[in-house]
């Protein structure tokens, strides 16, 4: 029984995830960031996480070049930040409060948690590339509820 592709994509939208902004930095010093919900922990020993980046994304060349990324876990009041980093073009970091982490990538103010990663492996995954990163540093600087995403929309706990 063949699956209709659009139906399959709709079904896959039932995966419930948190929302992150994945940041990185090019060798030129240019900062990049994109909204992603395709990420997951992978291993405890050593600590590893993966993130999937669309090959058509504006920031894709940065991830191909850079060997670092930082996962910023967004809070429920950061939907606007998620939307800002979800679109192409513009100065995404303009007016956004952040600091530069130990790996050189931006850490966004207000994020519930961040994980600074060093890319160990890039795996082809269809229209995305899976970047596997070793978590070198991690913090939970803020308490609060996370922003959630499923069935194509932003949610909060209790929705």
């Amino acid at each position, binding site marked *: 029984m063949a699956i209709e592709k659009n139906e399959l994509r709709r*079904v896959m939208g039932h995966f*419930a*995830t948190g929302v992150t902004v994945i940041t990185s930095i090019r060798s030129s010093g240019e900062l990049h960031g994109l909204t992603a919900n395709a*990420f*997951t922990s992978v291993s405890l020993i050593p*600590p590893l*996480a993966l993130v999937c980046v669309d090959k058509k994304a504006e920031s894709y060349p940065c991830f191909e070049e850079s060997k670092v990324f930082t996962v910023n*876990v967004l809070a429920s009041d950061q939907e606007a930040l998620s939307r800002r980093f979800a679109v192409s073009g513009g100065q995404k970091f303009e007016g956004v409060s952040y600091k530069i982490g130990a790996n050189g990538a931006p850490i966004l103010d207000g994020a519930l948690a961040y994980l600074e990663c060093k890319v160990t492996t890039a795996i082809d995954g269809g229209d995305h590339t899976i970047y596997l990163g070793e978590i070198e540093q*991690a913090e939970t600087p803020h308490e609060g509820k996370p922003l959630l995403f499923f069935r194509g929309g932003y949610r909060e706990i209790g929705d």
Partner: protein
Amino acid sequence: MDDNLARAMAALTTGIYVLTTQENGRCHGMSSSWVAQVSGEPVMFTAAVDNAHFSNGVIARTKALGLNVVGRRGRELEDYFYSARARRDNNLEAFEFELSPALAVPWLKLAMIAIEARVVDSHVAGDHTIFLAAPAGVRVSDNDRPLTSLDLDYVYLGGRQVFARERQG
């Protein structure tokens, strides 16, 4: 594991799934949360499975797995597959299930969505293996809200580290 790292990993909200396998008529399920969508064209997802877990070898041999999405109304699935009662071979007899049409992996009746998927690639990554899988069939049963890691009173990381969740608000 460093406490900061454990708390940061616990802050990653995940869905709750039961990964199922079938080999020579023996059916097995395991609770899983380290699952992510990968690609839209072709549609693919990853599941990270502990290298020491029984299911890892079965998935590697059969190149097939079932991904059962647990909804709020199916929470007893998580309660069972997280418990010590489920840590054995052939552990599905407590629940109604059918074998999927193409790959004959178990689809749990209580799951809100069940997917059968072919493993197209795998990579050992630390203490887990990343299985990259392409759906071959789906069954949508229930318009429930997916259960998430935030709905649980505990946090488990890779099936090993467990601690109580600090409730917010």
